[in-house]
């Protein structure tokens, strides 16, 4: 007794029971993919990989918003920061992602006004305080972050903050899962589905992918007990041969998710195609500002003259995001590519697979 809510999800004896059950019940060799970067990090931080049986391989999926941001989008952020009288605002992680030339952090060092914010609303505040400047927010992230960005755009529109705009590179999760399943060579025996994203999308959003591909799928949270529980459920689904779409995170995720948040998101954005770094274009996997909100589209405001550039040579981020390779199999890993000298975003992002292998290896 006396355990707080959080501690319960880290309780060693509960964890031990789950691990014992996984060891006892797991016979088939399974490749399970954690889609979300926060799961990847939690798996490494709690040392979950080395307490699972050898039958189970955990793969990191395309769920880190920093990792999947296309190089061209990073280049665009950098190009915006070079414009006169512009303040670029961004979430921290994005600062160090290499574009084809430099990073936002590099730009900041060179004198550009790049500011780290904790919320998109901080960007709106900065815009209000600096009426003589254009304040651009680099909008990356999945369903979890998009509703807040939409809300900020609505607020700016209502309050007539006309010097605020976003450079949009937001993405949707279910289309990426569908794209993965139709990529040749990809073999996944189970998805550990993202907790935060699902709070917004609900279980329903994954239904069509599940019906088409019948891959065992479990939504779960980020505590060790959550993750172990999901692994056990995926083992059971595989052993019994009955795939299912299950919700192991009912304390946060409802069947229909958060319709209110989705409503706000669709009020401002419409679904469009998006380029995923290392993977390429995925149809209907992105979000574009609706015509009514074009005034908030930074992409339309600046002449950026971007050219298509190849991703860094040798970087295997794409294959890693699709579960085709692990970081250690990348020729550059630890040799050329380290957190101090990252080649690909997977090594930069605190949720990236290569960074996780490197830091917690």
């Amino acid at each position, binding site marked *: 007794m006396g355990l*707080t809510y*959080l501690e319960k999800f*880290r309780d*060693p004896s509960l*964890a*031990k029971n789950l*691990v014992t059950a996984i060891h006892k019940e797991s016979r088939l060799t399974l490749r399970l993919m954690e889609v979300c*970067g*926060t799961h990847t*990090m939690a798996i*490494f*931080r*709690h*040392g*979950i*990989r*080395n*307490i699972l049986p050898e039958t189970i391989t955990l793969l990191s999926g395309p769920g880190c*918003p*920093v990792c999947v941001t296309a190089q061209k989008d990073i280049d665009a952020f950098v190009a915006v920061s070079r414009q006169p009288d512009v303040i670029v605002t961004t*979430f*921290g*992680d*994005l*600062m*160090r992602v290499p574009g084809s030339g430099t990073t936002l952090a590099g730009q900041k060092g060179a004198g550009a006004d790049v500011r*780290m914010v*904790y919320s998109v609303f901080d960007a709106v505040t900065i815009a209000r305080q600096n009426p003589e400047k254009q304040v651009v927010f680099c909008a*990356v*992230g*999945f369903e*979890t*972050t998009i509703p807040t960005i939409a809300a900020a755009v609505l607020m700016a529109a209502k309050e007539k903050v006309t010097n605020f705009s976003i450079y949009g590179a937001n993405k949707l999760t279910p289309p990426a899962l569908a794209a993965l399943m139709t990529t040749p060579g990809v073999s996944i025996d189970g998805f550990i589905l993202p907790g*935060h994203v699902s709070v917004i999308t609900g279980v329903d959003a994954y239904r069509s992918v599940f019906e088409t591909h019948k891959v065992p799928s479990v939504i779960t949270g980020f505590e*060790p*007990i959550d993750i*172990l529980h999901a692994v056990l459920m995926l083992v059971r689904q595989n052993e019994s041969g009955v795939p299912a779409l299950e919700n192991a995170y009912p304390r946060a995720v409802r069947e229909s998710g958060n319709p209110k948040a989705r409503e706000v998101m669709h009020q401002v954005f419409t679904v469009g195609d998006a380029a995923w770094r290392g993977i390429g274009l995925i149809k209907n996997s992105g979000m574009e500002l609706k015509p009514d909100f074009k005034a908030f589209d930074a992409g339309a405001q600046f002449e950026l003259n971007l050219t298509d550039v190849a991703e860094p040579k040798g970087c295997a981020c794409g294959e890693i995001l699709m579960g085709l390779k692990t970081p250690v199999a990348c020729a550059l890993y630890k040799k050329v590519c*380290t*957190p*101090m000298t990252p080649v690909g975003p997977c090594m930069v992002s*605190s*949720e990236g697979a290569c960074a996780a292998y*490197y*830091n*917690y*290896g």
Partner: protein
Amino acid sequence: MNAETNNTILLDHGAGGKASHALFSKMILPLFSNEYLDMGDDGAVYSVPAGRMAFSTDSYVVDPIFFNGGNIGDLAVNGTVNDIAMCGAIPLYISVGLIIEEGLPINDFQEIIKSMATAADRAGVKIVTGDTKVVPRGKADKIFINTSGVGMIPEGVNVSGSRALPGDKIILSGTMADHGIAILTAREGLTFDGDLKTDSAPLNHMVKMILSSGCEVHVLRDPTRGGVGTTLNEIASQSGVGMTLFEKDLPIKKPVNGVCELLGFDPLYIANEGKLLAIVPEKQASKVLDLIKADTFGKNAAIIGEVTDQRPGKVFLETAIGGQRLVDMLTGEQLPRIC
């Protein structure tokens, strides 16, 4: 004279003329006064007992300059006091270099030097020499402080980052990450429930107590920038040993842990300003732990791990759920995750 010039630091205050003199003699001297400084010479002349000396310097450029539980002033004094203490020395004298940006409110300045005086008193060190410069607006960020200090190492004491031995226990003198999280929340204007306060404190009395108890101590180090994780990595590679930490034993305050969870930070890499790591032979570990716990700043001390001969240069963490992971050095600043 308008209100602005009355209440803020001006370039004149650093020009060496009347204003400089007034700043020093009216504001600084009364607070820092002692027989050495009062002499008013260009440097301090003092005698020291025979033996080995420790000498350390550090510059403080923290932003913001005021935060919950302290300010740049006491931080600068405590920091140097602790660096000297971590050499196993008893700190005696420190110097203070102040680089002030034109326009700093006099009241802020006064509060900062007041807390420096209080911190020096509390640590039992004397500020024996110093220097003040004022730079034009924009050439510094409010105020930068350099402190250097000297201390004497008692006979028989020999602590160094290269002396950790397999079998030793690792003691942390209190909760991790308090300072870093206090600064972060103050800087970003983040508001969280719970009291997030710096742990900035002088540790020299604690060190003196440990060393004079006759207990053998191999390593003393304060895990400031880079946190406990990076500091232990440094020691592991200096000593050529491995280390295992136990997550269940790591002391951390609940609200601090909460902020770390929220932002995706690992508390093992967050700065502390009033904590020390002591690496001691196993047979003396519980005695040293008791001594630390008896100190005002060591109430939450705990044995957090042990030194091994496995995987030299590497630090591993046994997680609460029985997993194991590497605790590597921190590379770059930790940045908050996106969602």
